[in-house]
């Protein structure tokens, strides 16, 4: 299948909502994803990201709104929609009774794929997931990162053009995350459309061409990571710690420094174009923070600005 840059979006959601009783898990979100894009939903736990993913994945019914995947409504064409997708769920659901390689083969059978295709394909994917030497092992014997890579390998068994990844690296150690990012980046380079949810800003910055910041079931902002930072934050941030007792009281004395001030329980953030200059101003007022740090603005700051809360609590 060729991907046309100006082709119709592979995923289109309009006013998509999902309510559980009175709880509005997803509350009227709209977005479109063109083929080949890497699109992220960034937000804290409970923001409605997973619910959105389950609706896109054609496994959860929406309450209202419109949704199409490859032009098909998942509620009318469930099997057809799901046949287009590869899905990496938030929680692994590998069959631990089966060996590593058999997990791939069994999964491929759900797509009616013949064994003559599945046998070589399973080996190819195990290599891609760096699990070749574990092919005959039981799933229990794998580490968390390996299980995650196996789940990704499994999601690729039908050679999907769209891959849904729900919190792909949550719970993994930094090294395992980097291996995983590398694999995902290769998929992206090969033209696979990635849709991922995350509450890690570094993950979003590394992998997403474009993302939406989601909170309480609604989209707060949309754009590329750089664009979002530019629009909603300053270039640099000065982080000051005065000790937990003083952080909020000292804020008054910091008024006027930088463009914006964000007193948090554990530290005070000063948003400024030039962080070092802001720090000089602080010390010139006779204030002596216990620690100070100047850094570039990140998506975390965007989120804080938009919602008044931090991403990981």
């Amino acid at each position, binding site marked *: 299948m060729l991907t046309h840059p100006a082709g119709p979006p592979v995923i289109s959601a309009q006013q998509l909502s999902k309510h559980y009783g009175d709880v509005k898990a997803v509350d009227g979100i709209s977005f479109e994803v063109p083929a080949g894009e890497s699109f992220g939903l960034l937000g804290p736990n409970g923001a409605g990201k997973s619910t959105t993913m389950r609706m896109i*994945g054609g*496994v959860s019914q929406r309450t209202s709104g419109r949704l199409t995947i490859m032009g098909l409504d998942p509620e009318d064409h469930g099997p*057809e929609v799901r046949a287009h997708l590869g899905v990496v769920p938030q929680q692994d*659901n590998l069959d631990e009774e089966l060996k590593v390689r058999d997990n791939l083969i069994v999964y491929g*059978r*759900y*797509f009616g794929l013949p064994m003559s*295709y599945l046998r070589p*394909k399973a080996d190819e994917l195990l290599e891609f997931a760096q699990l070749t030497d574990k092919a005959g092992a039981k799933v229990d014997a794998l580490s968390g990162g390996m299980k995650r890579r196996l789940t990704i390998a499994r999601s690729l068994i039908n050679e999907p053009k769209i891959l849904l990844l729900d919190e792909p690296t949550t719970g993994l150690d930094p090294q395992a995350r980097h291996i995983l990012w590398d694999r995902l980046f290769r998929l992206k380079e090969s033209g696979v459309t990635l849709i991922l949810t995350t509450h890690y800003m570094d993950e979003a910055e590394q992998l997403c061409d474009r993302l939406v910041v989601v909170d309480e079931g609604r989209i707060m902002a949309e754009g590329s990571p750089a664009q979002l930072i530019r629009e909603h934050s300053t270039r640099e941030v000065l982080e000051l710690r005065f000790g937990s007792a003083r952080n909020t009281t000292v804020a008054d004395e910091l008024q006027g420094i930088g463009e914006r001030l964000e007193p948090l329980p554990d530290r005070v953030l000063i948003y400024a174009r030039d962080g070092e200059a802001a720090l000089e101003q602080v010390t010139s007022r006779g204030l002596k923070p216990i620690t100070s740090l100047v850094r570039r603005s990140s998506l975390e700051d965007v989120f804080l600005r938009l919602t008044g809360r931090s991403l990981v609590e």
Partner: protein
Amino acid sequence: MSENGPSVREATTGPPYRLHAHAPEVSARRARSFGSWYYAEHVLRSMQGYRWTLLASSVGTPVMYLFAMGVGLATLVDRNAGSAFGGVSYLAFIAPALLASATIMTAATEFTYPVMDGFKWRRVYYGPHASPLGTGQIVNGHVLAITARLTATTIIYFLIVAAFGASPSATGAAVIPVAVLSGLAFGLPLMAYSASVEEDKGQFALVMRFIVTPMFLFSGTFFPLDTLPVFLQWIGWISPLWHGTELGRLLTYGQAIPPWLTVVHVLYLVVLAVVGLRLARTVYARRLGR
């Protein structure tokens, strides 16, 4: 399931040494047609890991029961029974009952913990649920696989019963599908219940203790149901084990049953199984589609 699938592989473009998956439309079409079998295949593959345990218990259980009850106890019973057991030996009387109860007990195990495993512990159902398979096919596939497992166990049981000389009638082998049907009549409603259990607080142990065990003891298994006081006979009437056992006795040694009652036995089992399956499909769809 044939390894090559029902039709020739489609959409294999590119160099011959590098295979590609067929188009999503083909996957969807195949899943719509054969999805239940695909999932059954998966469950059976998972069961293979336990094949020796399963085989050992399939052989060990009948041998143990038939020796203890049919040979040990029977020598005492046969000496005193007269015509209490319809003129056949005690071994012949209890063999179809033991066979049906073994199938039902296996069904009771297969339709409880593995269902919980699918939804909660290892969440095995959520894998196929994200694939082109539908929830109804996941239910059907799981039921098909368990039916295959029940059939295999029941065949082994019957062969051992026959080796003990406890199935004198020529129609004896027909007890196998009857026992499997009894297993499903009990197992499918139980499957629907298991799928509705959100958290295991010992419900399944209670099912075993307060439903399966009394059913085993009071369904005309070891003595004719009408020898029980009337206020206990209802346990037999509602129990799929009693209906299955009565049909089994008809088939293995020609027990006299009025034809209308035979029809009732069959109908009762079929209705339980069908209602159970429909309920299970509803509960699965609701829980997986949340």
